[in-house]
C-alpha cells in the first residue's frame, strides 16, 4: 500500500481537514490519490524496439453539488497544491449548497490479488521470452514479413478519502501480452493480431507455452485474410461468433445504457426503461465481480463495491449503469460503475465486463439457417453515436455464408446498425458463451479504461455489411 503522505509537507490530518472543509456544503466528493507504475516492452522488426517504465503519482479533488462537478487535479501532493485545488472548487460552487451523503457500502471481497506483476517477472526473462516469441513465429515460414510482440504491465494503488475521514483503498494489477504478424504472399499483405491478459501475473497467462497459442492465432488470422475476397455490400443476415464479437453489445447497447447519457436524455435509450429493447431470450449483464478479469473491480473509483448489474433481462430494459452523481440525480443507487482513467480524469459511469448470457441454440443451427450472409469471428474495434444510436464495428476475420455453409473468407468490412433496434433483430442466441481473451480498452470522453466482453454466438436477421461487392 502506498503511503501518500510520506515525503510531503501534507499530513493525513491536514488533508482530511481540507477535504471536510471543502466538501462540507456539497452533496458529494472525495480526494482520490493514485500511485501507478507501468511498463511496456516492445519487440518489433527482430529487435527490442522499446522498453519503458513509468511512475505516476497524483491526486484529484472533486466536489459535487446538484448537477455541478468541480474537479482539480495535480501531480504535486503538497499542502499548497491541495489548498489551491480546494479554493478552485469552492469558487466554482460558491453559490450552491448541498448535503453531504456519507453513505457508502463496503465489501471485504477482493476480485484480484495485491500483486505487482511488473516485479514478479524479471526484465531479463521478459526480454528472452519476446525473443522466443519472435523466433517461433518467424519459423512459421518465409511469408512472415513482420512480427511485433509486446508486454505491458501495470500496478495501480488508489486511496479515496471522503469527507469525515472515511478511507477506501484498492490495488489493481493488470497485464497484457500481444502479438501482431504481417504476412506477404504473391504481393498481397495481411496482418493478424491476437492478445491475452487480465489482473494476474504474467506467468498465469504465459505458462505451459500459452504464448505459443497467441502466436498461432495471430498467424492463423493473417493467413485466413491472405485468402480473403472483397466483402459484399448491403443488408443481410449476420452470425457473430462467441467471445470478443460481443463488442457489438458494448457499442450498440452498453454505452447507451450509461447513466449520464440517460440523465441528460441524450441517449437513444433514455425513455425505454421497462420496455422491450431486445428479442425474448436476450439477457445482458455488466459484471465487475469476475475474478481476475480485465474489466473487474473490487471497488470502483468512488469507492462503491463492484457488482453484477442486470441491464436487459429476457429482452426488457431493467437498469442503467450508475456512478454516485447520476444515481443521486435519477433517484437510484450506484451500481459501482463510477470509473476514471487516472487521477487526471473525472468519474464517469462506465462498463466493466459486459456479457450476453447463454441461450439454447448451437452455432451450427444458426449457420445452417442462413441462405446468404456473413459469419463474423473477430473484430478490430467499434464506435457508437449515442444520440442517433448508430454504431459500427470492423471485422478482422469474417466469412461468407452461402446456403447454410461457411464459404470463403472476406476482407475486413465495417458492419453498421442501429443500437435500439439491433437486439430486436437477434433471432437466435447460442449456448456457447465465451469471455474475450482480455484485451479490451473502452474510450469515452477521452478516457480509456480496461473492459471485458462476453457472448455466445448470435444470429442477427438484418444488418448492413460495408463491403465493396454490389
Amino acid at each position: 500500500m502506498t503511503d501518500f503522505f510520506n515525503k510531503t509537507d501534507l499530513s493525513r490530518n491536514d488533508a482530511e481537514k481540507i477535504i471536510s472543509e471543502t466538501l462540507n456544503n456539497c452533496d458529494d466528493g472525495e480526494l482520490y490519490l493514485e500511485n501507478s507504475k507501468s511498463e511496456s516492452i516492445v519487440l518489433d522488426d527482430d529487435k527490442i524496439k522499446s522498453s519503458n517504465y513509468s511512475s505516476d503519482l497524483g491526486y484529484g479533488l472533486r466536489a459535487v453539488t446538484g448537477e455541478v462537478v468541480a474537479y482539480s487535479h495535480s501531480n504535486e501532493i503538497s499542502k499548497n497544491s491541495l489548498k489551491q485545488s480546494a479554493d478552485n472548487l469552492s469558487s466554482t460552487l460558491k453559490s450552491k449548497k448541498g448535503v453531504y451523503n456519507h453513505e457508502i457500502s463496503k465489501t471485504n471481497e477482493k476480485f484480484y490479488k495485491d500483486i505487482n506483476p511488473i516485479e514478479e517477472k524479471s526484465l531479463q526473462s521478459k526480454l528472452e521470452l519476446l525473443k522466443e516469441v519472435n523466433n517461433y513465429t518467424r519459423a512459421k515460414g518465409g511469408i512472415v514479413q513482420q512480427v511485433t510482440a509486446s508486454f505491458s504491465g501495470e500496478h495501480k494503488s488508489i486511496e479515496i478519502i471522503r469527507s469525515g475521514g472515511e478511507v477506501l483503498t484498492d490495488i489493481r494489477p493488470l497485464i497484457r501480452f500481444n502479438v501482431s504478424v504481417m504476412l506477404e504472399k504473391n504481393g498481397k499483405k495481411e496482418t493478424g493480431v491476437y492478445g491475452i491478459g487480465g489482473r494476474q501475473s504474467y506467468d498465469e497467462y504465459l505458462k505451459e507455452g500459452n504464448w505459443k497459442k497467441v502466436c498461432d492465432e495471430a498467424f492463423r488470422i493473417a493467413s485466413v485474410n491472405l485468402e480473403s475476397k472483397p466483402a459484399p455490400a448491403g443488408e443481410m443476415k449476420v452470425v457473430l461468433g462467441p467471445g470478443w464479437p460481443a463488442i457489438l453489445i458494448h457499442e450498440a447497447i452498453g454505452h447507451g445504457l450509461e447513466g449520464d447519457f440517460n440523465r441528460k436524455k441524450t441517449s437513444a435509450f433514455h425513455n425505454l426503461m421497462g420496455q422491450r429493447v431486445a428479442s425474448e431470450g436476450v439477457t445482458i449483464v455488466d459484471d465487475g465481480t469476475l475474478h481476475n478479469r480485465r474489466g473487474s473491480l473490487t471497488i470502483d473509483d468512488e469507492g462503491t463495491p463492484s457488482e453484477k448489474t442486470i441491464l436487459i433481462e429476457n429482452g426488457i430494459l431493467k437498469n442503467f449503469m450508475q456512478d454516485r452523481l447520476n444515481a443521486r440525480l435519477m433517484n437510484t443507487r450506484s451500481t459501482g460503475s463510477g470509473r476514471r482513467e487516472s487521477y487526471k480524469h473525472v468519474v464517469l459511469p462506465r462498463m466493466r465486463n459486459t456479457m450476453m448470457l447463454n441461450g439454447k441454440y448451437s452455432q451450427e443451427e444458426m449457420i445452417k439457417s442462413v441462405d446468404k450472409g456473413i459469419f463474423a469471428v473477430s473484430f478490430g474495434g467499434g464506435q457508437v453515436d449515442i444520440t442517433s444510436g448508430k454504431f459500427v464495428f470492423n471485422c478482422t476475420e469474417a466469412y461468407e455464408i452461402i446456403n447454410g455453409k461457411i464459404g470463403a473468407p472476406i476482407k475486413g468490412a465495417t458492419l453498421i446498425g442501429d443500437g435500439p433496434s439491433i437486439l430486436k433483430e437477434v433471432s437466435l442466441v447460442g449456448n456457447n458463451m465465451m469471455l474475450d481473451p482480455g484485451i479490451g480498452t473502452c474510450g469515452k470522453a477521452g478516457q480509456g479504461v480496461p473492459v471485458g466482453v462476453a457472448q455466445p454466438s448470435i444470429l442477427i436477421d438484418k444488418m448492413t455489411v460495408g463491403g465493396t461487392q454490389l
Partner: protein
Amino acid sequence: MVKDQDYLKKTAFFCVDLAKKLGATDATAVVGHSISETVNFRNRKLDESDRSDSLGVGLETYIGKKKSSITSSNLNEDNIKTLIERCIETTKITPEDEFNSLPDKDLLATKINDLNLYDDDHIENNEKIEYLKEAEEAALEKKEIINTETSFTESKSNFILASSDGFLNGYKSSTFSASCVAIAKKFDDKMERDYEFTSTCHLHDMLRPNQIGSLAAKRTTQKLNPQKIESEKISIIFDRRISKGMLSILASAISASSIARGTSFLKDKINEKVFSSSINIYDKPNIVKGLGSRYFDSEGVKMEELKLVDQGVLKHYLIDTYYGKKLNLKSNGRSGGTSNLYFEKGSISYKNLLKLNQRTLYITETIGHGSNLVTGDYSVGATGFMVENGVFKYPVSEITIAGNFNDMFKNITLADDLEFKYSTNAPTMLIEGMVVAGK
C-alpha cells in the same frame, strides 16, 4: 502560472547529468508543464469545472547502442533518482540496436524565428461562462434544439528538451478552444446530434460564441429525419471535417517507420504517382500562430517546409532519426509526425463541385476505425446528405462507404475552399467510384 524555462532546465539537467554519472553514454530529457482550465455548460447551466496541473519528465538513456526510457509525473527527488537508476539497469540488459542514436548534430535546430504560438491572455471562468451562455442562446434559437452542451478550455504549456550532446531548447504555447454540441428532435422522430468548435493559439482569434452556436444548431437540424439509401456505386463528396482525414492516412502511410517495417500500402512508391496530377501536398511547420506549427521536432531536429506530393508524385517520407538510419536517409525533422499538413486548394468552387455529378453523396461524419494501412482498404460508417444537381435533398444515415486508398487517392478533385481550422487541413473533396452499402 505555467513553470518557467529555468525551472524546467534545472530538472532536465539534473536527469541528464545523473544518467551520465550512472554510466549512460548519452541521454535526452524532456520536462513539460501544462495548466488547463475547462468549464462545461449544459442547457444554460454550469455543469463542470476542471483544473488540470501536470508536470512530467521523460528520459531516454543510451549505453552505446543500447537504449531504454522512463517517464514520470512523480518528481520527488528520491523517486527520480530511483527511476534513473532503474533506467540505467534496464539499458544495460536491453540488446543493442545498431540504429539507436541521438540525431546528427548538423541537423539540430539552431536559429528560431518567433511564430507567436503563446498568448499570455487569461480568461477567467466567469468570462468563459458568458461566452458559453451566448453560444447556447444562439443554438437554442432553433426550436428543434432540445439539448445543448458547450465547453471552453484554456490551456498553457511549456517544455524543455535537453540532450547530452548540447541541445537545449523549448518554448511556451497556448490553446483556447470552445465547442457547442446541439441535439435536435422534431415530433416523435429520433434525436440527432452535431457540433461546431473553434480552437486557436490566441484568445482574440476565436470565433464568436454566436457563430459556433448557430452553426451547431443548423448542422444538427439539417440531419433530422435521415433516410437509408440503396447500396450503389456513387461519387462521394467529403466535407472539410472528413477530407482532412485522407491526409492523416497519407501521413501514417509515409512515416519512415511504416516504410521501414514494410507495413504501408505506399511502400516503394517514392517518386511515383500516387495522386492525380492536380494534387499538391505541403507540410509547413513555420506558419505564424499555426495550430500545428513547431520550432523543431521531438528530437530537436530542425523542420523545414516539405512539398510531400508534387503534381501527384510522392516526394518525401516523414523521417525521424531511428528509421532514417535504418532506411539510410537523413531525418527531415518529422519525429512526432507532421506539422501544418495541407492540400493546396483546388480550382473549382464548392458550388460547382456539388454540381459536377447529377447525384452525389455528401459525407459530414464517419464512424469506426476502418482504415487498413497495410492493404489500403477503407470501410467506415457514414452520415451525410444526398445531393442532386447541386442541391441538398435529404439527410442520409446508417450506411457505410468503402474503397481502397490506392484508387481513392487517384480520383480526388478538390474545391478551392481550403481554410486553416485544424493542424491538418483539406478543401472539400470529391472522390469518384466508391461503394455505398445501405439497404
